[in-house]
């Protein structure tokens, strides 16, 4: 359990940079006058980001990941949009498919 002053200084800078990102957009929006157009744009952010997180796995993945995504879609439909449950079912499907060598 040791550290050095150099590391702690670097850590302080890194932590400040990380928190600045988390706070920055929120704080900046205080000075931006909100319009219906801007609100429509911000409302589109969550779906677009989710699509952006899923997209890379569509390209460079095998049958196990495809089965996982299908399991998520099916679980969402059957569970009435219980997303953590659907995600865990998707993970279980991927683990099973990989265990079977897919």
């Amino acid at each position, binding site marked *: 359990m040791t550290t050095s002053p150099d590391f702690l200084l670097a850590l302080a800078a890194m932590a400040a940079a990380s928190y600045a990102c988390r706070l920055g957009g*929120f704080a900046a929006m205080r000075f931006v006058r909100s319009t219906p157009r801007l609100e429509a744009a911000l409302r589109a952010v969550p779906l677009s980001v989710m699509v952006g997180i899923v997209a890379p796995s569509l390209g460079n993945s095998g049958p196990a990941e495809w089965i996982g995504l299908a399991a998520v879609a099916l679980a969402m439909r059957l569970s009435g949009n219980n997303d953590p449950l659907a995600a865990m079912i998707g993970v279980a499907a991927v683990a099973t498919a990989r265990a079977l060598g897919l």
Partner: protein
Amino acid sequence: MSRPPVPFTAAGVARGLARGSALSPGVLAYGVVFGVLAGEAGRSALEAVLMSALIHSGSAQLAALQGMATGPFVAPIVATILLTNARYVLYGAALRGWYGAAPPAGAWPSLFLLGDGNWAMAMKEHEQGRHDGGFLLGSGLAQFVPWTIGTWIGHATGSAIADPRRFGMDFMIVALAAAMATAFWRGRASLAPAGVALATALAVHAWMPGGWTALAAGLAGAATAWMLHDDES
């Protein structure tokens, strides 16, 4: 246009903890992976846990490990963290309409715990008409605690632990994002922003993979909704 004040209650925190705990096993597994990597990179257990507690971002911490291993200069590492966490700027902006009316003493610490999973869960919570500001804090703690504890476990056990890929844990964030995308879908109005976001994400991923795809997709979807917005309606 004035908004009603946003409550910030213990019940909201508890609800966030309960909902967020579904992600905790996956977060714990990745905390363990970071702990192993930090140990291999020569960081002490204290340093590894401090990084997880204070930087609190997997991709940024990996970049920091690499940066500290290659040179004594802090500026490039800070720049890398700003870039890998740039998507949080967008997340925070999207939260403003809701958290802007929450008590700052609750909102600011909650933002410290802002992550991909709990942000998506909170946005969905808000869309469904539940506005308690405690949710983001509770769901954030459900990630923060396993992330830091997992880091410590990983550092203590070293590379003896099993491959998290075997348990499909690397698929957790993708599976959650896919589920969330289904939940955020608003019919025909979602088609254009989601389509542009998908095309942008695939292009950016092919060109420069990493933390950029989600940010680029978010910006592209927002720009599409901005351009298509009809002021008359």
